[in-house]
């Protein structure tokens, strides 16, 4: 019998008792045989273990295949982590998609010239307040001077020219004056100056930025209550083509200009304003737009640059709406608007004579 066969037979207990006793004896005297036996036994064990190992794995795979893994997942993994895992898996795709989308949008906007339009829209809209100085430092200095003046209270009129000016007109006889919001925006202090050149200190009591309307109240004790207003406010809309005129302070003296309503909508289709073909300039802002009968139909507030005959005026209906919306506590009492018009039968020259004392230059420091 071959030696390996013998060893195996011995290890697997296939030998008879005598054979096995003989084998043990020869093993005891022959160390090399003994080593072979040990090695063979080890190797057999290794093969057997490998078999068991493979069986264990295949058993486990069978069990694993039987389990509902997604259900277990649901049970042990919080949702936030599932999102995180999804995000981890797909974030590069999402990022690429997002960048492509952004790029596409930007390219489209660029190629259609959307950006250029947007800037041009802003640039040709010119709010008509009059600017005296662009120097910020002077502004600061002037407001400092102003403060000093106030402390000293030596003079009632401001010592230096104002930085911005516009026009305003009386809302009623108690010293309420209406003007544009953009005229008084960012004001340190506000003065109104009447046609005789006398200045009164005023405060802004109400603003309505979206209608570009501001209401000032004269707080100067020297201000005398006015005689009743000659003009009234037109509640309904005016018609296209109606002759209109305005009075304002584009320079230091009251200036008259006339024109007609050229469109029922304002800048870029803005329905709050009329388009008026009238030549107005910086400083006309806040001036009343009157029709031939002396009704206030709007407030001049802007014009379009590089376009002839396109000035804009806030419709009187919105002016009235803004005034109605004034909180009562910002006023001493309710503002009563004049409804009686005493101008309708007068000639233009006489109308202006009656009106001019109710038009003010609004000076903003």
């Amino acid at each position: 019998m071959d030696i390996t066969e013998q060893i195996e037979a011995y290890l697997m207990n296939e030998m008879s008792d005598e054979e096995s006793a003989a084998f043990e004896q020869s093993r005891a005297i022959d160390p090399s045989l003994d080593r072979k036996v040990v090695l063979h036994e080890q190797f057999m064990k290794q093969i057997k273990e490998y078999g068991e190992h493979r069986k264990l794995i295949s058993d486990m795979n069978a069990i694993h295949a039987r389990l509902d893994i997604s259900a277990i997942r649901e049970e042990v993994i919080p949702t936030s982590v599932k999102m995180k895992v999804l995000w981890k898996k797909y974030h590069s795709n999402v990022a690429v998609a997002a960048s492509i989308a952004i790029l596409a949008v930007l390219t489209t906007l660029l190629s259609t010239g959307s950006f250029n339009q947007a800037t041009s829209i802003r640039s040709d809209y010119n709010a008509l307040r009059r600017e005296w100085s662009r120097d910020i430092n002077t502004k600061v200095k002037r407001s400092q001077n102003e403060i000093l003046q106030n402390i000293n209270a030596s003079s009632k009129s401001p010592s230096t020219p104002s930085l911005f000016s516009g026009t305003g007109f009386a809302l009623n006889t108690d010293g309420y004056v209406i003007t544009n919001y953009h005229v008084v925006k960012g004001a340190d202090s506000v003065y109104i100056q009447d046609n005789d050149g006398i200045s009164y200190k005023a405060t802004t009591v109400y603003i309505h930025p979206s209608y570009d309307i501001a209401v000032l109240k004269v707080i100067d004790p020297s201000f005398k209550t006015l005689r009743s207003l000659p003009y009234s406010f037109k509640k309904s809309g005016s018609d296209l083509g109606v002759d209109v005129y305005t009075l304002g302070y584009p320079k230091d003296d009251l200036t008259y200009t006339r024109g007609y309503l050229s469109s029922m909508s304002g800048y870029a289709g803005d329905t709050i304003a009329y388009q008026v073909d009238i030549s107005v300039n910086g400083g006309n802002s806040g001036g009343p737009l009157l029709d031939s009968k002396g009704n206030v139909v709007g407030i001049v507030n802007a014009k379009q640059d590089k376009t002839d005959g396109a000035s804009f005026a806030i419709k009187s209906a919105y002016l009235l709406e803004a005034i109605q919306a004034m909180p009562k506590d910002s006023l001493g009492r309710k503002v009563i608007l004049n409804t009686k018009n005493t101008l309708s039968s007068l000639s233009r020259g006489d109308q202006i004579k009656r009106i001019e004392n109710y038009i003010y230059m609004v000076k903003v420091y």
Partner: protein
Amino acid sequence: MSREVKRFEPSDNEVILGILNDSKGVLDKLYEAYFPMILQLVVMNNGNDDDAKDIFQESVIVLYNKVKKGDFVLNSKLKTFIYSVCRRLWLKRLSQKSRVTGNIVDFEEVLSVEDDIEQHEERDKQFDLMELALGRLGEPCKTIIEDFYMNSKSMQDICEKFGYTNADNAKNQKYKCLQRLKKLFFQA
């Protein structure tokens, strides 16, 4: 963040006895009781379902080996042992993939299982060698060896299966195969 995984757990003694007696049912119970815990561990730490499967199965192999060798002393819960092995194995995988190193979000307490894992890796190497050697052996030798040594089939069965004229022929063939396998195994 961590959610307690509550499941039916077989008693530790039951599992150990089951492993020693080659009970199939106990493997089922072990798998169902502890796989979810490992799935949670792995998925919450940058792994996926397949990683969890691999890691868990390795830990079961470590446990089986330890129990069968008889040096499994029940000085901690079985659950803790499995968790610790998996945690260690997963950390190793992570550092190999060099994704995250060192830090892991834990859900259970942890034992030191370095020795067990070292042994396991050593064994795994041997198994890989065996697999390689068997693969090179070719048919019919591979099947004969597998049937005789792993599946404990008698020489008579093998003789019939492969159509040898008598059991002695089959035996001869088997010895030749075994010699070649030894050569291949120890050469590698």
